[in-house]
């Protein structure tokens, strides 16, 4: 049924002599559960269905999103996409040409053990409330929250080159947080990471592995302890970034600046451009030799995992940064020819109502060869910064500032107490070149970022970051609270 309607849209585009056309029909089912202070805060189920039609006509693009899956409405939408492409063509300088892509017929289903939509709501709520109860046992905790998010996206993709792909992608996320408040301030601790927790391309089995209840009391105690902890000192310091904070550091300072559309100026009006200009490809020392970063849509569990991107290009793994050198960008069929390559499959759309853009898939910092324990032990004087609290980076992706929920002082190779309100700032290549150690695969995991914003109209992407722990020297710390 969906396929027939998609073919109808394709036929109309082709009969009007479109250069190229692709159609996606998407059915999304989602569930969000929030508990707070021992009771329900909200449970919502959502269904979202529609078709996106992208047409290239006379070398220019048009796109129409259409929620009505009826033949007459599909026809109207297809003609609208054509009309828009014709209007765009008035102003084009060069005709858009797409890098070749293989014709594909396939079906891809993301790995899962337990379908969360088959698990009863009661069971899920009870699970969160158990962790919530543990957090509330700690005196001075004012607000406790727990979250679960599930999302199943079933989509078909077909294009005028004969490709037909079916995909079924399942995401699961969960986390808890405890907030301690007094007159002057509030302090939060989250587990396993901040902003709704950990997200993966997995089923309900993820929830069972997270050990929320087991960690609930600990984070609540940490939140309270932060209220009376010392302020993170100002100055140049050695820092070690904890996994989920390092994930966001990779996201903002490597993922975004390597998006080729940004580099080429497509996002100049909104998200911005990139300091990683084309002249830097294959010769720019982005980071120290320890730094190896890949774009990997095949990475199991990664929130950016899929079989094919939204141009029908197969999932791939490519080095972006190899031994510290910039060697690749995230590309699409339209942009890859600029660097004489084929698309590496990173075109992704937020649902059916948006056109695909170059987006991260899983941007992973490969593990180093020192154990986590040795990383700490070999640090004479430093701070371990964990779980993001705030983030900001400029429109070229150079000057960043992050804040984390907690800082652990490291003295002579040992963890020696906590500091509150840690912030750190730097300039991207200086920072990554100051990286002198990355912990090994035993402390490596892949973290989901379900809220990456880009584009106009704004789109949200769900992306992943495989990371362990990394150490950076001479980093400016404490700037957010300076003066």
């Amino acid at each position, binding site marked *: 049924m969906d396929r027939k309607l998609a073919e109808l849209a394709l036929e109309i585009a082709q009969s009007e002599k479109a250069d190229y056309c692709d159609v996606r029909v998407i059915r999304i089912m989602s569930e969000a559960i929030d508990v707070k202070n021992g009771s329900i805060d909200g449970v919502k189920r959502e269904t979202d*269905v529609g078709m996106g039609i992208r047409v290239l006509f006379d070398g220019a693009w048009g796109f129409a999103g259409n929620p009505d899956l009826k033949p007459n409405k599909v026809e109207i939408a297809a003609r609208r996409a054509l009309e828009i492409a014709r209007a*765009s063509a008035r*102003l084009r*300088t060069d005709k858009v040409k797409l890098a070749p892509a293989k014709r594909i017929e396939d079906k891809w289903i993301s790995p899962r053990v337990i379908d969360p939509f088959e698990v009863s709501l009661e069971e899920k709520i*009870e699970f969160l409330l158990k962790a919530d109860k543990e957090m509330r046992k700690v005196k001075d905790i004012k607000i406790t929250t727990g979250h679960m998010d599930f999302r199943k996206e079933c989509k078909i993709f077909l294009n005028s080159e004969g490709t037909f792909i079916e995909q079924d992608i399942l995401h699961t996320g969960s986390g808890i947080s405890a907030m301690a408040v007094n007159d002057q301030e509030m302090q939060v601790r989250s587990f396993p990471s901040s902003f709704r927790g950990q997200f993966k391309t997995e089923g309900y089995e993820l929830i069972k592995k997270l050990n929320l209840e087991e960690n609930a009391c600990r984070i609540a105690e940490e939140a309270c302890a932060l209220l009376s902890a010392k302020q993170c000192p100002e100055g140049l310091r050695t820092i070690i970034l904890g996994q989920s904070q390092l994930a966001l550091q990779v996201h903002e300072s490597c993922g975004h600046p390597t998006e080729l559309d940004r580099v080429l100026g497509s996002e100049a009006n*909104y998200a911005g451009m990139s300091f990683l200009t084309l002249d830097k490809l294959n010769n720019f020392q982005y980071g120290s030799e320890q730094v190896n970063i890949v774009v990997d849509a095949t990475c199991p569990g990664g929130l950016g995992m899929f079989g094919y991107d939204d141009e029908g290009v197969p999932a791939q793994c490519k080095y972006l940064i190899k031994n510290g050198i910039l060697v690749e960008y995230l590309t699409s069929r339209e942009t890859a020819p600029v660097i004489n390559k084929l698309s590496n499959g990173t075109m992704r759309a937020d649902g059916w109502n948006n056109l695909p853009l170059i987006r991260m898939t899983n941007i992973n910092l490969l593990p180093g060869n020192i154990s986590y324990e040795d990383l700490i032990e070999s640090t004479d004087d430093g701070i371990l910064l964990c779980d993001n609290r705030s983030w900001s980076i400029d429109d070229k992706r150079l000057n960043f500032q992050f804040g984390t929920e907690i800082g652990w002082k490291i003295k002579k190779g040992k963890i020696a107490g906590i500091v509150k309100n840690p912030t750190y700032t730097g300039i991207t290549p200086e920072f990554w070149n100051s990286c002198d150690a990355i912990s090994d695969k035993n402390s490596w995991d892949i973290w989901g970022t379900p809220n990456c914003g880009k584009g106009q109209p704004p789109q949200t992407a769900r992306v992943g970051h495989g990371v362990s722990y990394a150490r950076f020297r001479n980093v400016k710390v404490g700037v957010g609270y300076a003066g």
Partner: protein
Amino acid sequence: MLGKERARKILEEAISYSTSEETEVHITGGKHWLTRFANNYIHQNVVQKDYSITARLIEGKKVGIASSNVFHDEYLKDAILKAQEVLRNQIDDPHIVPLSPPGEYKEIKNAYDAKTMEFTPRQSAEEVEHVIKKCKKNDLIAAGTLSLGDNVVTLMNSKGTFVYHAWTDVGFTLTTINSEGGTGYSDYYGTGIDEIDVENLTDIAIKKALLNKNQIELPPGEYPVILEEKAVASLILFLSSLGFGALSHQEGRSFMKADSKITGENITIIDDAYKKETLGLPFDFEGVPRQKVTLIENGIATGLVYDMKTAHKGNVVSTGHALPPPSTRGPFPLNLSLLPGNISKEDIIQNTDRAILVTRFWYDNVVDPKKTIVTGLTRDGIYLVEGGKITTAVKNMRYNNSVLEALSHVSYISNKLKSIKKYGLTIACPAIKIDKFKFSGLSA
């Protein structure tokens, strides 16, 4: 567009499928066109259409919420049944409040401009063509958007509430880039396509980019700044999420201390969906009429916005600021204004001996919620003002400041408000001069 009578029929039918004690259903949606250009050509050009129905069902102390964008014909019943299913599997919510009885609200006139929706993709392309030609003539690269659309929010509940509001919106944004990579910017947000003065907006962005050459580096530190309207809006925006809502106050997270002085005396901030610069919804997502609320008056914390739940807890009436269910973030002001002063922006510059003039901020984020410390970067043109004149362009910088502290050092407030849309909020701001503002580092 979904008209009022058709909306009423759908909502009535939806409620008829519910067997719960109380039922509330709302529909939101519309159609939007957006033409996007960069590198002097149109690279993305889209039309989007979507409507979504959300049902909130209450039975005893249980609530069920579900939403769907498929609700034509036989699917409408499905949407309600999904909420019922959630409710059946739900546990008790001890803090539940009953649905709102019907309330009287004043219609917002002139919110819908029919002419706007007749504008064609071809006409949009022609406008963009004109902008690009002007930029090219000045050796600038143009990137930006021209967007327009219609919107509907309508809600009905089983207590007899029925509310409906439709409006159009338009937006224009323009970034201009000079040969050194220096940029300029202008934008406009409003109701009708004819309001957009493309000519003037293009001139502003061109002038800013042409000025933004040979940037000098200033050392980080404390400076007097003149913030243009968009930069002011970035700061004010954070106050809404950090403390103007009753929930944040009830939980002790808010910076608002009732009847205490929290900013300078020249600062008054209100939320008003009827004010022409901040037109919004005349009711909220519980169907409650939206009130005008004075949040800060002459520097004193005076008011908060409420939804039914927080109003019940605070023993007051809802001000009509509920967000769509499940509204876990609590009530929210969506139509903020910082009230204007009585001097023109040009005169502020002329009266200034030395200050940094900021076009806008970028990637602002909260560092400390209760102290209202925010960080971010300048973007698209900052300039040094010396002896009442703009003398040179300055390299971008990062700031870290407490918003309340910054608003305690405001020496000038301009007499004209500009409407800015961001994250679903409409904020009207004047330009202001702040005598002490901290820049913490250099940027790109």
